[in-house]
């Protein structure tokens, strides 16, 4: 893997400077059944196509941010910091 990701702070960098944090998902809040909780914990989506996901720039600015990427081609369409009005991800 040698595709590049534009870090919102550092600019375009190779993927090995980053850590993948999984797709952005809403963490169940309030009353949830055990089934819903288990779904959240263990049934991760394995999207074939575009998804919004967390990345961590571990070798540089140490920021977590969101990226929209095509999992088939590794094309990264956009990256941005998390905005408070969005669903809270893990």
């Amino acid at each position, binding site marked *: *893997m*040698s*595709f*590049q990701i534009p870090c919102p702070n550092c600019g375009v960098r*190779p*993927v090995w400077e980053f*850590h993948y*944090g999984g797709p952005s998902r809403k*963490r169940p*809040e309030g009353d*949830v059944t*055990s089934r819903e*909780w288990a779904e*959240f*914990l263990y049934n991760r989506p394995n999207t074939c196509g575009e998804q919004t996901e*967390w990345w*961590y720039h*571990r070798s540089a600015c*140490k*920021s*977590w*941010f969101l990226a929209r990427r095509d999992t088939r*081609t*590794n*094309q990264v369409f956009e990256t941005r*910091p*998390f*905005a*408070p009005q969005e669903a*809270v*991800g*893990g």
Partner: protein
Amino acid sequence: MADSPVAASQEACEFEFDGKAITAQAGQTLAGALHEAGQHVVSRSFKYHRPRGLFCCTGRCPNCLCTVNGTPNVRICTVPAEPGMVVRSQNAWPSVNFDFLSIFDRLHRFMPVGFYYKMMYKPRWMWPIWEKFIRRIAGLGSVDRRQGADGTYDKLNLFCDVAVVGGGWAGMHAALDAAQAGFAVTLIDDQPLLGGHLRFDPDLADSRLADVVRQVQEHPGIQVWDSATVFGLYEGNYLGIQRANRMIRLRAAEVVVATGGWERPLVFENNDLPGVLLASAAQRLLHLDRCRFEGTAVVVTDNSQGYRVAGQLARAGTTVGAIVDVRENSPDKIEEIPVRRGQTIFAARGTKHVTAAVIAPVSGDAHATLSCRWLIQAVGFTPASSLLHQNGCKFKYDPLADHAIVTAHGRGTHSAGAVNGIHDRDGTALDGRRAGLAAVEALRPHDAALAARRDELKAKMGAIPLRESAAAHYASGSPAKKKFVCLCEDVTEKDICDAVAEGYSNIETLKRFSTVSMGPCQGKMCQSSSIALCARANGKSIEETGVTTSRPPEQPLSLGVLAGRGLHFSLVRRTPMHDWHVSAGAKMMDAGNWKRPETYSTPEDEYDSVRSRVGLIDVSTLGKIELRGSDVVPFLEFLYPNRFQNLNVGRVRYGVICDDAGILLDDGTIARLEEKRFFLTTTTGNADAIDSWFRSWLAGRPQLDVQLTNVSGSYAAMNLAGPNSRQVLAKLTDADVSSAALPYLAAGQLKIANVDAVVLRVGFVGELGYEIHVPSQYGLHVWEAIVEAGKEFGLAPFGIAAQRLLRLEKKHLIPGVDTDALSNPLEADLPWIVKLDKPDFVGRRSLAQAGERGLRNRLVGFRIVGETVPQPPALVIHNGKLGGRVTSCEFSPAAGCAVGLAWVPAEQSKNGDKIEIHVDGRVVTAIVQDEPFYDPQGHRLKS
């Protein structure tokens, strides 16, 4: 410099080949010099030990692999001769000219295709004998272990806008057009000089070649890397390049692949005899190495290149006996050389060199034998498309051109010239310019000037013809066994047909079973013919047959190039007191990237001084995080299962961190230094992971007023522990360090040895103790001050080994050692930490569920009466089955027996329960113990 490729010798020189002195003319390659000296057998083949001579002369085929100055598998056709070089042939004993193992050539019926899968494994007792024999004869070349690394391997990281791979006619034009638009271009070519095949085809080259080469070299926007091989084109236009001993990693915004073609050999009987050459090999030897071909040559061709080569040979003094043109009606003509149209090569005759060519009509079996010494084949090129394949380009087989054509390029990738099947000289230039422009347009879209130039080019290009013609490449019906498809692995046409008949009919399984295309040339010589044969044997079309996958490296490269400089392999991290430890004679150990003292004297003595006097350990490697802001408490309440509402200023608390599945990730201390300022420690190994974990939760909660600063490197830390530690500390500070002023679990900010310090009264080792954090620049100063002050109290530094035992006696777990990816704090014997009455926190739901479900396993302390000390991961046996495992175990001086921690089934985890531990084939009984093994009430800790 390390990466300067070998410079051609400016004058004639002498080198050694298998002990024989050979003279090379100025600038000649080793191969050229051997040819001139009449040494036409340069190696022996892999399996049958058949004599092999120069064949492709472009650094592709396996025939000229030799050991040069101790380096095995060097292609001598690419290495300029230097005075005193020592060249040895490979795969031959005693010599290439007479090789005993050529007996294999007559034993081929005992070595059918895939014989190594079928033979030698029965009877079993024979295998060690076979193995010795196989190891002796298998493989190519041998590494000279005495020589060692020459220490000059190196790496370089570069960037450019447009990378052009291949400095031939197409590549140079692409580079020029891209550079003229103002972009930074890097042109990489594997030859010492630019120009591609025009360098050795004087009938095609005119004054424009020198002109274009000069333009490229003088253009300030073009960086040329000659003698450099692109071995990989990776995702994101990342190029791996080898240049002598240096690896260049080049990141390009756009890539133009102009790698040209690989000349294709024909498959006929004895097609591997020395004297059978590809046309470009003959041209390179003629024009670059200025060699002669004495005697008679026969040229087999289906295109105009054959006629040019024949003419060039004739002009150099060779008698060209005939041009055998596969085409019935060809437009090409040549004077004074007989042309036999509609015929093709059927077989070569000779033992160690060609003596005659047998030719036959393309359809039919009337043979004619032409006496000759050289058999030159000029039947076109296969696109050198490995890099395009690697980059995910899509291809489609074109029956007219008889090779695959790119139909869709990978992102940011372009191709030009012969790799697109374009061989016409002017067409190649236009195609190169088109690709260069396309690359530039991708970088600067909607540019009217670029668009205009592109349209202008398009108009000029019209329809560029692809390969001139593609004739049938096989002489019909020869049943001979020695028709080699793959020169690297000695795979014959019959082998391929047999393998298909045995069921290996898919091109990928055929490749693995027969090993065709798996040798040093990686299919460059054999891919097209093996696919064609596979198709024919299956009765399918070439398109249906498909191609095998090309992967990096495109050309062989030595492991040293991939490794780079040894010094750079692994990061070494040192604490501010590192040099002190080394001078004190500490035995250092690796803890991740860290160097840490394992012990200074013996772990037993160090244990003793901590328990009875006072010890000092360097814990600077701990992760340290400072949190400030008005929302730190709610944030910590959310991240930890612990409670923090009630943590007062000046107090410190032990805590563990869990993930949402309730799994224990790490432990550490949380100190509240000020109302809105907290100081956290993590374990050494998890420092970065916990930093990232905190940041991940903060990233999703930007509204929280929490400022996180990783201060791991800013503080040196040491743990002063033992009954005398208070007296030592008191000597170094004016502050009150009495138990009243600084009780157990106090977090103080005091001056120690005149340095501002954070002092945490925690007791990992179970004694009165102080974890002292000071700014790193004063780490050594404070350490030395403590050591000095501690002298009269019997202070000794202690290392990791003693600490492991000290903490084990207190039953303190180490995350990642005593816990794993299935451990939660309830089962890891830390239920008091989990406050399920808090609102939501990370892991709460899972821990609540785990609590309701009941514990399945528990981490318990155990002691063993007797001498046995089971080493982790000794297994715990429960009802005759695997029930758990020991995670830590040491002999405890305090308990007088072995003590440890183990995971056991919950129903066997009560105080006093007996558990069985499997040790060296027997079972020992251990007793579960709830209390720590040392100072169970914690009197010493809290004193």
